[in-house]
């Protein structure tokens, strides 16, 4: 048993007509199964509407499966009495951070998730401080949440998740509005948590180069998993990816072009260093 087990998961949404009658069902997750082990770093990619956020919401029991099961440390999300324990284990960053900000001052917002978990004020204070530092936004601690920029909001909502120190982190496009510098900083921190503290990480992202942080990449298309492999292997399947609406990362594309021109490269390089090896 992994710490996440998804078995034959199906999610369908009701489609209503103007009179609020259900006229049809839309299948958004179409019979997928996978397990994630403690300490894995999994990246989920796929085009818009492929079902990534829906899957993420199934993991913390926000959406209950139409069919199949989701087990977190063996606890089924269908058992309402276990939902609290499930959510204690999963820190979840949603796609739209603006909807996620609940308090009017940054530090209160960051503390919100910890509030009902019985931490001492000192411990809370320490954690707020730590997580704001990780994200490089200590100076915003007493700022009003209505008065910060888009990227800053994204960082504040992430700080709130980091300070819960959950065993599993589900991050749905956590860095979509952060500059590349900030994005890499943040991912390096998450990577560190993953490696040092064995935090399980599920990262959903359209920044395709971010797959290089992961041990494993799951590619979704139309509610199905079409690939589940290491980053290096996944980018070799460029035709499959293109058909699923995904372009390769910049460096990988360059490497592939140079390889087909006859340069000594594998066509699955991710870093500038790796790419420039052909000059040696």
């Amino acid at each position, binding site marked *: 048993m992994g710490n996440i087990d998804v078995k034959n998961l199906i999610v369908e949404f009701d489609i209503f007509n103007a009179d609020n009658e259900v006229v049809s069902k839309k299948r958004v997750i179409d019979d997928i199964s996978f397990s994630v082990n403690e300490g894995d770093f999994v990246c989920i990619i796929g*085009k818009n509407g492929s079902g990534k956020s829906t899957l993420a919401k199934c993991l913390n029991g926000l959406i209950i499966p139409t069919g199949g099961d989701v087990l977190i440390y063996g606890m089924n999300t269908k058992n309402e009495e276990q939902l609290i324990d499930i959510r204690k284990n999963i820190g979840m960053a949603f*796609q739209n951070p603006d909807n996620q900000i609940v308090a009017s001052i940054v530090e209160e917002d960051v503390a919100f998730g910890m509030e009902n978990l019985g931490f001492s004020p000192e411990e809370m204070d320490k954690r707020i401080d730590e997580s704001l530092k990780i994200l490089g936004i200590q100076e915003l601690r007493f700022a009003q949440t209505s008065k910060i920029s888009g990227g800053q909001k994204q960082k504040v909502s992430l700080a709130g998740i980091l300070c819960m120190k959950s065993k599993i982190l589900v991050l749905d*496009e956590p860095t979509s509005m952060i500059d*590349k510098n900030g994005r*890499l900083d943040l991912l390096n921190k998450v990577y560190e948590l993953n490696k040092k503290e064995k935090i399980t990480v599920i990262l959903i992202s359209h920044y395709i180069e971010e797959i290089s942080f992961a041990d494993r990449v799951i590619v979704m298309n139309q509610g199905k998993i079409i690939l589940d492999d290491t980053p290096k292997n996944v980018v070799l399947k460029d035709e499959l990816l293109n058909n699923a609406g995904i*372009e390769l990362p910049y460096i990988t594309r*360059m490497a592939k072009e140079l390889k087909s021109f006859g340069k000594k490269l594998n066509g699955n390089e991710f870093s500038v260093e790796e*790419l420039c090896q052909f*000059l040696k």
Partner: protein
Amino acid sequence: MPIFEVKNIKYTYDKYENSLKYALNDISFNIEKKDFVALIGKSGSGKSTLISHLNGLYKADSGDILYSGNSIYSKDYDLNSLRFKVGIVFQYPDYQLFSETVIDDVAFGAIKKGMSKDEAYKKSLEVLKFLNIEYLKDESPFNLSGGEKRKVAFAGVFVMEPEVLIFDEPDAGLDTMSKINFYNFIKSLNNDYGTTVIYITHNLDDVVEYANKVIVMSDGKLIKMGKPYEVLSDEKVMKEADLELPYSISICNKVKSMGYDIDNTKLTFSDLLDSLKKL
């Protein structure tokens, strides 16, 4: 005549407090008709604040903004009509969606602008097709995925056919193919109809592909404006703005450090590929 002349504008959010921290601090620049301008800068540098001034949504504390030669701050200026000429898609497009179905939402602005209902719905359908989201036309905008919402917000602005299109981080949340499709579409509006485009982005490698000018903001100031290669290869500016270099420049730097010569004014993907092939 430039389409926008921005003259020494200053703006602070804390007018009633003593700390006068300027979100915009003495900003001046011109934008010509048909320009394709990328606005870049670190989180919190003032990018969103700046574009909110360009359709009169925010009013500068001092300084002036001229649109086609006329000050938008003069008493008799018709700010309402400016909003139809300058179409903006904001950073959180959720707040721009409100109708019951996607198609109603997309047609709304154009009808308000004065387009006939038939025309507006016809055009809306065309735009939805261009963006590959025709299948969403009868859905409720609230049930859409993140990327789908953003595309619907784009569509609403496209249908109004504004003279200037402004996008706040349009690529955030788009899958890569949709992103390419989006840029090609606005590039064609820019080429074929002379639509002026201003957009905020964090993807500097895309800036090289599409923009003809780049503005760099840092801490409320405009610290450089110029052609993409001029700006992005200016180490001092990139450092001051605290921005990570695009891959193209990092590759050029690495190649040079290995003792090879490479033309770092040619930064598009295909140009760089050609240079690398020759090494």
